[in-house]
């Protein structure tokens, strides 16, 4: 037999021995997130579990820093080769849907989400009545304080009103020890705006009402004044509260090292605090946002995250992506009746938003740190999701930072914030 015939026979035999499954059409989908490497590993493990029953679908996970997430979605989501699935912040949805970067959910997925999630969360994942994403996490703001520093300063309980809050911030301030009473974050839009907005709603105010900014209200006047008072009294030191692209930096460093008495932060920081503080994490407690002079009871700001599918991906990729997401968020994919997604979220201290997940994680959600967040959820107001919301948020960030660094007075900051917000939201609504 000639060498050529031998080669042909060998090739034919090899092909005949290949598993039948390798002939099936395989689909590759990618998942873009801003999660840390540890959390990405959990998502990759879930994708491997999914592959056991769906060997024709391969899921790759790609992570970018939070600061680059929207840019990556916008610059790569316009093509079929961009990420198939993206985790997004609800504020970004109206514009991503307007620009047709995200696909509406299939009817089956939309039906299940409407039945299994709270109505407010479903509404944040919808535009014009159409559902665009599967909600997964909900974040809410509360007061975090260091019990050890409170004890040293002779403070027996968490402040309930703004007067008590200012008093506690003053007592916790020790310039000689490089210690500030209240950490007022800067250099990160959501990190700056959400705590301010939480204090504002706890004073009976709002950022936006019926699509129009209402930063010219008397409640907002009091909120801007509170910030100015805290800065002028030295209880908040802006230089101790800078954040970097990964939302860490001096703000986090100073709180975990006991140089900051109180901060207003969301529940998802639990994992960052635990890894930064070790055993000293037990010193951290959670309390509702102090109530302002015009407020009735504690309120705070909440926002949600969801997973969306690239509208420009191929039909097979889109179908595979929705199937994977439906599985990931299904109560059968995780442990003890929880979804695999909620298990991943709870590893970071993030509250899942699916009703069955909240029930399944009832024990962990009752921990000293997280129960403080769960308790304020019912009275939390969703951060306004409007076209131009991201630009509005960044503009308010600049104004609040100028106030923090003493470049403008509270009165001027309020006037600037209202004028900028009006112009931005009007332009975006056109």
């Amino acid at each position, binding site marked *: 037999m000639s060498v050529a015939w031998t080669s042909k026979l060998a090739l034919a035999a090899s092909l005949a021995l290949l598993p039948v499954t390798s002939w099936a059409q395989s689909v590759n989908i990618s998942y873009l997130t801003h999660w840390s490497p540890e959390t990405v590993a959990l998502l990759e493990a879930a994708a491997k579990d999914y592959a056991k029953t769906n060997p024709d679908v391969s899921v790759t996970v790609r992570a970018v820093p939070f600061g680059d997430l*929207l840019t990556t979605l916008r610059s790569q989501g316009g093509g079929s080769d961009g990420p198939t699935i993206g985790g997004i912040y609800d504020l970004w949805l109206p514009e991503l849907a307007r620009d047709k970067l995200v696909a509406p959910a299939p009817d089956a997925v939309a039906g299940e989400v409407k039945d299994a999630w709270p109505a407010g969360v479903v509404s944040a994942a919808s535009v014009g009545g159409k559902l665009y994403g599967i909600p997964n996490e909900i974040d809410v703001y509360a007061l975090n304080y260091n019990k050890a520093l409170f004890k040293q300063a002779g403070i027996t309980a968490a402040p309930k009103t703004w007067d008590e809050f200012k008093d506690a911030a003053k007592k916790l301030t020790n310039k000689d020890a490089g210690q500030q009473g209240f950490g007022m974050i800067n250099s990160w839009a959501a990190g700056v705006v959400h705590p301010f907005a939480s204090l504002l709603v706890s004073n009976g105010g709002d950022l936006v009402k019926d699509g129009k900014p209402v930063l010219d209200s008397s409640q907002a006047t009091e909120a801007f004044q509170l910030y100015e008072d805290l800065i002028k009294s030295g209880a908040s030191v802006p230089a101790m509260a800078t954040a970097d692209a990964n939302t860490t930096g*001096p703000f986090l460093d100073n709180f975990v090292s006991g140089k900051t008495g109180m901060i207003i932060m969301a529940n998802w920081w639990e994992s960052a605090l635990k890894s930064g503080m070790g055993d000293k994490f037990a010193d951290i407690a959670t309390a509702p946002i102090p109530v302002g002079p015009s407020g009735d009871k504690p309120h705070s700001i909440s926002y949600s995250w969801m997973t969306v599918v690239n509208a420009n991906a191929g039909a097979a990729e889109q179908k595979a992506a929705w199937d994977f997401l439906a599985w990931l968020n299904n109560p059968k994919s995780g442990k003890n009746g929880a979804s695999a997604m909620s298990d991943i979220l709870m590893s970071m201290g993030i509250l899942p938003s699916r009703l069955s997940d909240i029930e399944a994680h009832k024990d962990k959600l009752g921990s000293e740190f997280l129960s403080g967040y769960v308790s304020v959820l019912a009275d939390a107001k969703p951060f306004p999701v409007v076209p131009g919301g991201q*630009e509005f948020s*960044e503009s308010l960030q*600049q104004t609040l930072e100028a106030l*923090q660094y003493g470049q403008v007075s509270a009165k001027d900051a309020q006037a600037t914030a209202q004028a*900028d917000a009006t112009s931005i939201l009007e332009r975006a609504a056109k």
Partner: protein
Amino acid sequence: MINRYRASAGIMLAPAVTLIGVFVLLPMLLTVWLSVQDWSTQTPFSSASFIGLDNFREIFGPTSVGRDFKGALANTAIYTALSVILILPLSVVFGLMVYQRDVAGGTALRTVLFATYMVPMIAVALVWSKLYSPSEGPLNQMLGLIGIGPQPWLSSPRSALLSIVFLNVWQQVGYFTVLAIAGLTQIPGSLYEAAKLDGANRREQFRFITLPLLRRTLLFSAVIAIINAVQVFEPVALITQGGPVGSTNVLTYHIRRVGIERAQGGLGSAMAVMLMLSLIVVVCALFALVNRKDDE
């Protein structure tokens, strides 16, 4: 004969001219065209609608769009000016130290200087953000040893931009030192020998021989340093995100935020056109200044 010469010259130039036209001139013209359109970056060019100079009015107007753009333009100008002012003299000083073979440690200095240029910016940004840390940063710890209190570095709008400039100077100075050394090697040794015979000391030799004959090299270095500085992006994106209070919000970072993150392609293009015009004006002014000196 002349026609044949012209035809062959045209054929030989065509590939380069075509490539430049497609990859350089066309994007530039497209940016200029988009700067007078209302256009979302996520939509096709066909959806753009002509709005005249509205985008330019907006970026120079009193609203937050105008304030942020003018702030970013000023930050870029300050960053560029400080970078060039620091880099050029340092590169000459280091160049002289390395070039003078009788200075001890010249080779080691040359290696160290050029090594910084080879380090990727991501690594530089990570290391410097920790060096600048207000609480545990080595820089503040060293200052503490000589009785100087902790500095806010990246955490204050007064010092954040300057801190990014220092980082840039540290990384770039090695490259410009190499350029300075190249310029120094072009100066004939006989000039120094003649000057020595005439009784000129080292300072006079530097002032009347080295500096005038380095002028062309320094012009080239200045142009490259300006272009590099205007394009600063990574340290801002990686460390400060333009803050605090927009003090490090430079134009490239701001254009990315407006044009890509907010998808306001028309506004972003108008900003890019202004950046391009500013760069052209500055570089032309620099050439004019040096040419005038040459004529004198």
